[in-house]
């Protein structure tokens, strides 16, 4: 029983982190329909900006996180306006090449500016150290991740169901001309959606910094993981991403506890099985590239 509860906590933590980072990619791939293999760059930039704010500007944890998210969102906006928007109508392979190029440049820039080593985000005393839950100690930071992840999910649900944002986004993507004719600025929507995805990734990078360490090669290390979440969740399916993140994280965490000798074979086999039976993702998604 202890093991099950442990698996649950660790897997929800990891899953939340994956979701917050990958949801932007799902939106980019599924709704905006542009391939961005450099998405992990936004996550790691979030971590780097936060580190910088804490060590150089001497911000506290929360102000630094906020500043970092703002900076990452801006970075996303700039990249979208300057580079990605030019390739919206180009082939997927061109977008692959462009985003890989951006990823490489991003890695080199991070390495040049911040150095090759890992950057840790010093946690405030409230958040460092374990919290005794009786049957095991949970690092306090993990509880923060779960809480924040839940808040993000809640916020997105509210935004989608209570506002017209969700409907408009779909309108813009599916019927651009029609949407524009009633006054919706599609370029603005693309830019905002992309930038928000980047900002969320930045938040995810900060939250996940303990288990997905901030170092220059972050974008390549976790690319496959993020893409897996999007593929299994269904392109553009935001709730699907949540489910997929939880599923993937659950499989990985369980196998660490129960079948460590199989390593990551189980996760990949699971992915293979799911996708071969449900090519549009477990929960269905957009017919995307």
């Amino acid at each position, binding site marked *: 029983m202890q093991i099950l509860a442990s698996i649950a906590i660790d897997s929800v933590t990891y899953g939340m982190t994956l979701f917050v980072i990958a949801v932007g990619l799902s939106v980019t791939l599924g709704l905006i329909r542009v391939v961005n293999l450099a998405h992990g760059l936004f996550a790691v930039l979030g971590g780097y900006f936060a580190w910088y704010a804490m060590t150089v500007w001497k911000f506290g944890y929360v102000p630094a996180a906020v500043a970092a998210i703002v900076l990452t969102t801006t970075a996303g906006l700039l990249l979208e306006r300057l580079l990605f928007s030019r390739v919206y109508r180009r082939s997927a392979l061109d977008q692959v090449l462009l985003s890989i190029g951006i990823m490489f440049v991003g890695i080199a820039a991070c390495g040049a500016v911040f150095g*090759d080593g890992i950057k840790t985000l010093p946690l405030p005393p409230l958040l460092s150290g*374990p919290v005794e839950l009786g049957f095991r*100690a949970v690092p306090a930071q993990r509880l923060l991740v779960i809480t924040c992840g839940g808040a993000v999910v809640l916020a997105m649900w509210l935004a989608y169901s209570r506002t017209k944002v969700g409907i408009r986004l779909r309108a813009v993507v599916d019927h651009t001309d029609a949407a524009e004719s009633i006054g919706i600025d599609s370029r603005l929507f693309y830019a905002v959606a992309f930038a928000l995805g980047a900002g969320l990734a930045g938040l995810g990078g900060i939250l996940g910094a303990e*288990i997905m360490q901030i170092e*220059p090669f972050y974008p390549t290390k976790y690319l496959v993981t993020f893409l897996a979440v999007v593929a299994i969740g269904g392109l553009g399916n935001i709730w699907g991403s949540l489910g997929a993140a939880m599923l993937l994280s659950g499989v990985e*965490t369980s196998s*660490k506890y129960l079948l*460590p*000798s199989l*390593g990551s074979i189980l996760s990949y086999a699971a992915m293979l099985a799911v996708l071969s039976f449900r090519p549009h993702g477990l929960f269905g998604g957009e017919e995307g590239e």
Partner: protein
Amino acid sequence: MELRSILLIAALALSVTSAAADTIKIGVIGPFSGPFASAFGAPFRQGIETYVAMNGDTVDGNKVEFVYRDLGLGDPARARTLAQELINNEQVQYLAGFVFTPNALAVAPIVQSAKIPTVIFNASTSVVVSKSEYFVRTSNTLPQVTVPVAKRALERGIKKVVTIVSDYGPGVDAEGAFKRVFEEGGGTIIESVRMPLATTDFGPYLQKIRLQKPDALFTFLPFGPPTFGFVKAYSENGLKEAGVTFLGTSETQETDLQALGDPAIGLETAYFYSGTHKSPENEKFVATLAKIHPGAIANPATVSAFDGTRVLYAMIKATGGKRDAEAALAAVKGQAWESPRGPIKIDANTRDIVQNVYIRVVKRDASGKLINDEVATFAAQPDYGVLFAK
């Protein structure tokens, strides 16, 4: 287009670096960029330059020049290509470096047929040195540093251990060596876990170990993010408080130690070099390093390169600057001297290194810096891998 200019400049640069007469070139292959640069690549260079600073850049009138080639990861094909280039184009007389075992193994046939003495600055799998008559190693082997950990654990009365290593060559070697010695000494291995190399979240593994309640865990992980993540997870999941001792080898090496922070305090490791080793040689070494590279941290790779350069110089001296691989090797086989790490010797048969292995515990020194404090010494440890294989 810019590309053409880049290539043009490159071609010019390469042609200009052709050798002058009487210069002896030594090719150094290592990770000078990428994730392993700070733990190995930069220290290699610094170790070489420290030796040169202390002993000059000529040997009996022959100028010595080091040619560096970057190889950031285990890529045997590229390792071989680089070695070929260095031998055929740069006309190097010696090769040095090598962090990853597959890279060293890949160049073995070439250095053997081209008769190029090669000094290995890191690759620690036992079998490497046996792959060519012209290999010499100045770093360590995994069994060499693992056996003392197990022996010490037995001395301390530790009875039950969980081994948890990264699932790759060195990790499996370390697990094997530890198990063998620990079980022979009467200890019990509760479980042997192998974690995928790509693991980033170590919490679940450590949680499970905590539930299993061993006296200690023994671990081996590659440098950088994995070690980092593991040590943090060890601390965050309360294993120290639960009484599970941390036994390791290279996890607390100096370049990453400060970044580990408080979680590292109390960790016990066995390794061949600590930056705070008390000896006149080490003091001189560290001082010279600080002078030519302010801010550089002396770590095991630095010392391995430093001693390796000494071996290279000895070979050049013995051959009078001429190409004579047999004479070069004959000169260094069996040589013993006092390195900054302590007394070392190059085994006359295996060409591998025989050295002291120290048990260290991490603590903060008077200035608040984290150090590997040597608490016990296992003298003149050979490569146990060779002995086990018999």
